[in-house]
């Protein structure tokens, strides 16, 4: 956990991944968030996911906006290239970086203020474009850095620490994503690393924008009675009927893929997402089915978690733009310049 100081010499030898790196190599700076913050658990899950996937740290670009959540990229994968941008503006900056260099793994960390208020338009359009990136919303229902104002994800009836209960309809990023044509939608809970890590790994493999809404209680401003984003509320109301495993391409290609009606979704890179204990009437490829399922549970005050929707068939901006496999940033400028003869020739049209 990056929120606690580690001993200089580990007590037991740490396990190594395929690159010979330990989990420590995927950690970052010490967290400066409040002790017990849900975000630190998400940071730990991200750290684990990248370590387990053996993603080379320097091939990761981590971006964020502004807010408590957006501070966290400092706390994982210190060897990754980081960009802490402006409030709500992470999606377009990630879009530009991805456009310039498609070879890297992009992870954007955002919060409910960052993505559902000031940057709602940007998030929506990044989803529409299907920018290949992992997009994590660390959703706590409040503005933490400015001391506890309710955010756009606060449920009706939820009470801030001080003040009246919320009467304004919340924005649900999963429902929004379904209507925007999102290609990968998941919801999880920061207190459930076992569920979150496979989802994060599947998201990295996804060919497009993978949106993960992680309910992440704010221990300081939104963990009290009356909050619907508290640890207690989530433990009591989470419905984990959609359970998923991630089977990476290389390591477990021989793994026993069940044939007993369990859904298996092959990802673009050849890895596999396996849905376990999915309700019989649940189809993660069917938008209206997914929406109906979530709504039914919401009506009962329940929060459905898991990998809820996936579509591997949609094209990314690079596929739509027919760009080369190598990064556009790596094409030598001389190759991009048509030269003097072409300039002379094309000016015949300007006579």
């Amino acid at each position, binding site marked *: 956990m990056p929120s606690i100081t580690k001993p200089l010499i580990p007590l037991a030898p740490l396990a190594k991944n395929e690159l010979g790196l330990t989990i420590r190599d995927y950690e970052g700076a010490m967290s400066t968030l409040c002790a017990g913050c849900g975000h630190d658990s998400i940071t730990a899950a991200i750290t684990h996911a990248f370590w387990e996937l053996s993603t080379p740290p320097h091939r990761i670009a981590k971006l964020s906006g502004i807010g408590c959540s957006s501070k966290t990229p400092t706390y994982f994968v210190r060897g*990754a*290239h980081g960009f802490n*941008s402006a409030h709500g503006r992470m999606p377009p*900056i990630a879009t530009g970086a991805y456009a310039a260099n498609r070879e890297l793994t992009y992870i954007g960390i955002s919060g409910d203020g960052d993505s559902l208020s000031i940057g709602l338009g940007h998030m*929506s359009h990044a989803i529409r474009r299907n920018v290949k990136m992992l997009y994590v919303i660390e959703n706590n229902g409040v503005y933490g850095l400015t001391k506890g104002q309710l955010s756009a994800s606060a449920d009706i009836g939820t009470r801030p620490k001080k003040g009246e209960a919320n009467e304004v309809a919340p924005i649900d990023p999963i429902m929004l994503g379904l209507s925007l044509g999102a290609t990968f939608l998941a919801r999880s809970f920061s207190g459930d690393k076992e569920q979150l890590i496979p989802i994060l790994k599947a998201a990295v493999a996804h060919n497009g924008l993978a949106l993960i809404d992680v309910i992440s209680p704010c221990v300081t401003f939104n963990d009290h009675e009356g909050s619907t984003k508290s640890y207690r509320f989530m433990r009591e109301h989470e419905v984990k009927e959609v359970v998923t495993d991630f089977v990476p391409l290389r390591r477990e290609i021989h793994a026993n893929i069940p044939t007993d009606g369990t859904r298996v979704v092959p990802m673009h890179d050849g890895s596999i997402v396996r849905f376990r204990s999915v309700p019989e009437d649940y189809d993660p490829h069917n938008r209206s089915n997914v929406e109906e399922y979530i709504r039914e549970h919401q009506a009962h005050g329940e929060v459905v978690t898991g990998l809820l929707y996936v579509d591997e068939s949609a094209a990314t901006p690079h596929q739509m733009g*027919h760009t*080369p496999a190598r990064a556009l940033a790596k094409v030598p400028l001389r190759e991009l310049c048509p030269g003097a003869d072409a300039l002379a020739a094309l000016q015949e049209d300007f006579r």
Partner: protein
Amino acid sequence: MSLDLTPATLHAPGVNDFAVKLANVNGTGSASANSLMMQAIFRMGVPVSGKNLFPSNIQGLPTWYEIRVNGQGHTARALEYDLMVAMNAATYREDIASVVRGGYVLYDSSWPLDPDLDREDVTFLGVPLASMCIENFVAPRERILMKNIAYAGALVALLNIDLDVVSQLLAETFARNEHLRESNQKALRLGYDYALENFSCPLPFSVSAMNETAESILIDGNTATALGCLYAGATVVGWYPITPATAVMDNFQRLCQKYRRVPVLGEDGETTYENNFLIIQAEDEIAAIGVVLGASWAGARSFTSTSGPGISLMNELLGLAYYTEIPAVVVDVQRTGPSTGMPTRTQQADILLCAYASHGDTKHILTFPANPRECFEFAVTCFDLAEHFQTPVFLLSDLDIGMNDWVVPKLTWDEDWVPDRGPVISDEQLAGMKEFFRYANENADHVAARTFPGSDDKGAYFIRGSGHDQFGRYTEKPDEYQQVVDRLARKHAAAAPYVPAPIIERREGATVGLITLGSCDAAVREARDILAERGLACDFLRVRGFPFVAQVREFVESLEHCFVIEQNRDGQLRTLIASETGVGRESMTSILAYGGFPLSAITVVDAVTEHLEI
């Protein structure tokens, strides 16, 4: 020496020295007929300009086109019209009133002209354009469109424009559409023959072939800007549609489809194409500049094009780029502000907005092209400047430059061009380094080397718009913060000798200086010649970049008085010069034209004359 202080007027019209104004209704197809006239005169080797004064509307509102022909090369906006082609009954009154005494009005005589509109001192040339087209064409749309070509035909006869040149242009334009080609040729002859039979052709002013444009092209600034971005190697762009900048991206896309598609032989023997570009039409201008920052951070050359309202929205991220030192090229095709203002009218009112864009202490590098040729050249310069100094750089074009066709010397390209990527550290260099810090080890221009994402772990760093020290680490300590922003100020100052140098022209005995920028150039030069003829020698300085080199201050200090001529209400260039060079504001008088139409020499001459009278 006595000065002639009467209000300015241009010379009496004559051969290769006159101005025509065409009053039309927008959406009726007049634009192509009008530019056809201008292009024909250009092909006859005669210096010419065409200014499209159009409404922010698709169909039905008044629109004007002005053609100025001047063998001396003075092709700024005329303001005095020797011939009015009055094709819009809704604006007859003002159009007829704007013709000079002794001038001509060509109108559609299919309907009688209101006797109220008559003027004793101008000659009315009635051509029954509508009747002619109804008699000769069947399709309703054609009857409307061909009226334009018919009046063009009349102009060809009246102004002695080479009919063969015009026919050839029509043949080229409609090379793939025989029907339209024939209709156009027929309409052209209808107007031409009518004028020859009914009027004394040519008029006292007309066109006579010269050899002044053989090495020139006819191009608008937006196309030239797009060409510059193509040549500079831009691959990723983010943009949002806005008048008058949209054509920059339309052209960039068109050029990329022609020059950036690389054939690739597939395994199946089929040839496919790969595009060495990715254009992202963003959700707004905030996202557009965000895309540029992301792409530039990742090592691509990237730009956006917009106009004033877009710059307003981009302010936030321009500050981020400035403070985190990310290159960005921003094309601002200025239009009339504030707010929505007049989207199809020109102005130079974003100078201060761009110079100091975003909150906090910021200062940016600006370039000021005066014509499409400079748009091409400065666009390339902007990419080099942005990467050399790792900061946003603006190309401040305007609607007049961007959307009008200009006669400019042919564009040239130096095959030995080496792009200036600024200091960048490769993985090989990283291997030999003990440690890398993003903002440490500044060079002589106060710029520190960067790595690109994807570089070895050792080159990984964290960009933050929050307070950071010289190593890039988060800080809230006053001295560490100041150390960084002080270096940014030194870095900006260091750019002065790298931006396009000012054009300075001295005249024997001059005590007065004319300072200007951008599209004012042609009008100010012409004004300077007129003033010289009247006995007032003026020195001339056109700034082409910001920060200013010392010559700007020295120029102002070397003269008794300077005039700063610009197209905005508040004298923004004058303010910028005064605050950034330290010269006294009182040593400079503003001459301002900001109604939205291109500047005319008359305005400048009258203002200088009026000031000297006092």
